[in-house]
């Protein structure tokens, strides 16, 4: 059973649909009380960093999420903004992040007329290390759907799980102990996303 955090910053419906497709069960949690007993959590999110942190704070999520992440160490997967919120801070906002992983979220900085921001569409990715989430059975031509203007810059290279090339080589997936994050949308990435969600469902 996967608990999906719903603090009105993400598309929880499509995440639930993909979990169902992967043969699992999920529950959409609309208040922090509902994740107190969670065994496994997905934190989806789209939109601006400060709005995300503000919604987490206003909804009273932060304390219970901190307990789950750092004390109980339940597996947590952040998607898109949900991943970025796990960092220390973001160039996009002034509020501190959840500070679970040593990383900062920074903006794509390209010359005008070179690469468009946001980075939107399907892109190929590279595997930096194998874990239970990204196992060796993942094929070479992995591709996922992205929509984002900011990306997570890891302080520790060993935390990097996946990378993507869009003008620069940036981290699009990390895994550090019980915490995982992906910049792309596995719930909208066909069999490639299904494989990842299935692994999170079954192997953790």
């Amino acid at each position, binding site marked *: 059973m996967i608990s999906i955090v719903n603090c009105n910053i993400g*598309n929880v*419906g499509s995440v639930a649909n993909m979990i169902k497709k992967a043969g699992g069960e999920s529950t959409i949690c609309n208040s922090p009380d509902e994740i107190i007993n969670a065994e496994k959590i997905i934190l989806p999110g*789209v939109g*601006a960093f400060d709005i995300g942190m503000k919604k987490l704070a206003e909804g009273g999520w932060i304390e219970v999420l901190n307990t789950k992440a750092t004390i109980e160490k339940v597996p947590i997967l952040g998607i898109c903004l949900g991943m970025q919120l796990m960092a220390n801070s973001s160039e996009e906002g002034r509020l501190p992040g959840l500070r679970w992983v040593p990383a900062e979220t920074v903006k794509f900085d390209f010359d005008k007329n*070179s690469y468009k921001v946001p980075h*939107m569409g*399907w*892109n190929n990715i590279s595997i930096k290390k194998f874990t239970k989430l990204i196992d060796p059975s993942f094929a070479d031509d992995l591709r996922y759907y992205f*929509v984002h203007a900011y990306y997570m810059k890891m302080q520790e290279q060993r935390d990097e799980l996946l990378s993507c090339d869009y003008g620069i080589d940036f981290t699009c997936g990390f895994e550090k102990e019980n915490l995982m994050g992906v910049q792309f949308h596995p719930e909208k990435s066909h069999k490639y996303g299904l494989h990842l969600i299935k692994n999170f469902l079954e192997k953790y």
Partner: protein
Amino acid sequence: MLRPRIIPTLLMEQDYLVKTVKFKYDKYIGDPISTLRLFNEKEVDEIVFLDISASKRNVEPNYDLLKDLASECFMPMSYGGGVTSLQQIERILSIGIEKIVINNYAIQNKKFLKQAVENFGSTTIIGAVDIKRNFFNKIEVFSHTSNKNTGIKVADHLARILDDGVGEVFINDVDRDGTYAGYDINLIKKLSESMEVPMIICGGASGYEDLSRALAAGASAVAAGSIFIFNGPHRAVLITYPGKEDFKLFARKA
């Protein structure tokens, strides 16, 4: 490498799919759910559903159908048709659809797009504009609800919706819709230069070559209906999508 965005665009009337020619002569295509399943199998990169009857009939989006579609859609999906309030947008997003296409109501209510962007973020809101040439061969904004040109200049309308902060612009070339005449390459060049956000062009594709030309001309994404749902001169329904080898043909500008 970022793949070029190639987007099947499916038109709905209430609960079935149709295909138009120059926005007329709606031909029945079939059931949206089974069609979507076929596109899923082909691992389509993204898909757009437009209910072309909702605004005309002044009805709410068909939430039951959207819910069924979203539960089968493992790719990004956009929906447009009859969206006139923030509450509707919220409801559609919560169903599991990523992006909302707003066309007609942005002409009527000049504040709506901006409010939508402020509430749901620019990457969620696509501003759509139907373009038709007038008697003097000048492009104007066309209204599909009243089925006539509005007299609004395309450049003015685009400037306004870009100022409202839409994350993408979807251009529908009414004169070429369903004609297989190819995209209007000059139009693509002219319009794509005028905007920094991604521009999706739709209307006229006759084959993969046309998609390639439109991308090379500056379109960020190419949308089409007929070439993905019809086969042969009699327009027999057959669902197709470019395969891995085809994608190698598509030029791409960053």
